[in-house]
């Protein structure tokens, strides 16, 4: 279990991280979300013990984090790159050795992961000869080769095609079932929504929202429906029951006043337009993200 308490990091006069707290439970994926420049990378760097916090505590499995934890941590940085002119196997063995794996174990694990991610044939190739997607896979292997118990993944899905994205997703889920502690930082809200149980949303170094994703959704304003219909949507603005609506090609996502019962609203609509779809929906994480950050920035 990773616990971060009242983390503050100042650079000169700017406050990059302002009193952030979070708890990551093993066997769960924790989503660290926020717009660019929100302070995610700084938070991650302090957890990694790359930089020292100005104040606050970071505790992993009951002890304050120190250099001894290096071998337990796996980190995939957002920006990717490897030693371009070196061989795949050499790079992997090097990173494994840096995590205190013996040479033999390192080679064995490297071969295991290369096979698992279907890129065994590139074992003896130079990194620069690989496609971008395959280079990313190598970097992912470099981050997990030592079987870390705390895994920090910064944008693990960018640059992958849908098939590879699925592979990486399955891989991350397999780590969850192994009981690893995982922090996922991403801008891809759809994936975060599917993978993360708990999230922390930060903006300008400060917490905007945190907790179980399901709770956040419930509290966000629950009375949402999706209405599919044929014809013009301009009629929607005449209804006092509607707080807000987002229009798409064939449907509109509508937020109703809390006292309105969706079924009653549907009955009213059937009399007016030709309804071909109706469903009660939860707000998407994407929507929550945008709304909360906008509100926070105002």
């Amino acid at each position, binding site marked *: 279990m990773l616990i971060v308490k009242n983390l503050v990091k100042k650079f000169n006069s700017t406050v990059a991280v302002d009193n952030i707290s979070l708890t990551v439970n093993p066997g769960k994926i924790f989503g660290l979300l926020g717009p660019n420049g929100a302070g995610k990378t700084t938070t991650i*760097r302090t957890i*990694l*013990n*790359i*930089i020292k916090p100005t104040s606050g505590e970071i505790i992993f499995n009951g002890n304050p984090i120190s*250099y001894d934890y*290096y*071998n337990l*941590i796996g*980190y995939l*940085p*957002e*920006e*990717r*790159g*490897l*030693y*371009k*002119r*070196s061989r795949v196997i*050499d790079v992997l063995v*090097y*990173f494994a*050795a*840096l*995590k*205190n794996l013996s040479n033999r174990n390192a080679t064995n694990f490297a071969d295991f992961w290369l096979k698992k991610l279907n890129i065994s044939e590139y074992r003896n190739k130079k990194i620069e000869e690989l496609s971008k997607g395959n280079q990313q896979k190598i970097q992912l292997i*470099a*981050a997990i080769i030592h079987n870390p118990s705390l895994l920090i993944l910064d944008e693990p899905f960018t640059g992958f095609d849908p098939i590879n994205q699925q592979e990486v997703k399955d891989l991350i889920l397999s780590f969850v079932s192994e009981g690893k502690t995982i922090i996922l930082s991403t801008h891809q809200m759809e994936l975060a929504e599917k993978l993360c149980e708990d999230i922390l949303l930060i903006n300008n170094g400060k917490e905007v929202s945190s907790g179980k994703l399901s709770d956040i959704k419930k509290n966000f304003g629950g009375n949402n429906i999706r209405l599919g219909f044929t014809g013009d949507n301009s009629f929607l603005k005449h209804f006092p029951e509607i707080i807000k609506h987002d229009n798409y090609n064939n449907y509109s996502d509508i937020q109703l006043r809390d006292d309105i019962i969706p079924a009653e609203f549907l009955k009213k609509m059937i009399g007016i337009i030709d309804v071909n779809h109706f469903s009660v929906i939860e707000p998407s994480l994407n929507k929550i993200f945008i709304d909360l950050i906008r509100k926070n920035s105002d």
Partner: protein
Amino acid sequence: MKKIITISLWEYVEKVKTKAFIISLIITPLLIIAVTLLPSLLLQEDSPKVEVIGIVDTSGIFFNYLESEFRKYELPNGQKNYVLVNLNQLNKSYEEIKKIADKDVLKNLIDGYLIIEVDENKDFVFGEFRSNLFGNFKVVGRFEEAINYIKTKNTLEKAGVPDNVLEKIQVRTIIQQKKISEGDKTSDLDFLTTFFLSVIFILLLMMMVVYSGQLLVRSMIEEKSSRLIEMLISSSTPDELLTGKLLGLSLLGITQILIWVLIGMSLVASSLLPISAFKNFFPMLAYFILGFLFYASLFVGIGSTVNTEQEAQHVTTYLSLILMLPVVVAMPAIQNPDFIVTKVFSYIPLTIPTVMILRLNVQNVSGIEIFFSMIIMVLSIFIVTKVSAKIFRIGILSYGNKPTLKEMIKWINE
């Protein structure tokens, strides 16, 4: 400790494998040796063939003398070195003889010819050696010597000076150079050889510093721009990383030195270099290694703040120019050992290696001075490594603009 070894081995193996390293390893010393040794080799070479040389002597008094004088020059196989031909035998006018002789030179029938012009008193006024190449220093020198002798002889005879005076005058004064060192040992090692050897050492040191400095800075730029550095320092401490890098670079340097020493030894074995040239070898090697370590630790610190290739080149060029500075004052330093600038440079860590390598061979440097300069080097390597580590710790994580000196000082104090 294990991680330091892992990092240093990685740095070493990945760099040794590069083509650029292998090329620099062999090409650099070969180039330097070629440039420094070739001219002297070419000059020393005795042409083993008999040279046919024409003489155009309008006075008629020089030819016989020159012919008898030049008989003393022999080739190693006992043959006469020169065959002199009297071109006045052609019984043609001066202009015609010249035309014929020029043609013969171009056809390689004769190696060259000498024109001697005299005034009405049959005194020498002008000489010209014509051949199809420049650089007949040896034969021209011999003609000059011979003609000079007969000129002096004639002049003295006319003045009524007895012959034995001339013999006395002709004994050449030769001043030999000996270098004195402790324990009454003298050395008669050719000054130029020692001087060149120092210069070769300095050039090698400079090439090595520039080359490995660039190698190091470039690989750090790669690690920074790809954020690999973050993966590295989430696996090891910045100090481990810095020490590993320094060690790897030193291993690289030692490999280079070893191979260069082997080349040097094979030169001694093939007697291209006298063994005595390596008299000061060990102190020189010590300065070489200390100098390399000093600059390597400097490069690691400054290199960590650099973000682009261009900046890297500026940094490496400036640093190696400082290293080269002592060579500029080398000549005054040799002529005047107490030259104040030389003394000052002997105590500045940036210039100690080069100045001391130079001075070791041309002066007698006291043991105390060697001891102190080495202590200064070791201390400054220690200090620079500490300071570099502080800059490194923050520098490797700062992207964007190059930090100002003020910011760097702040990092050091942090």
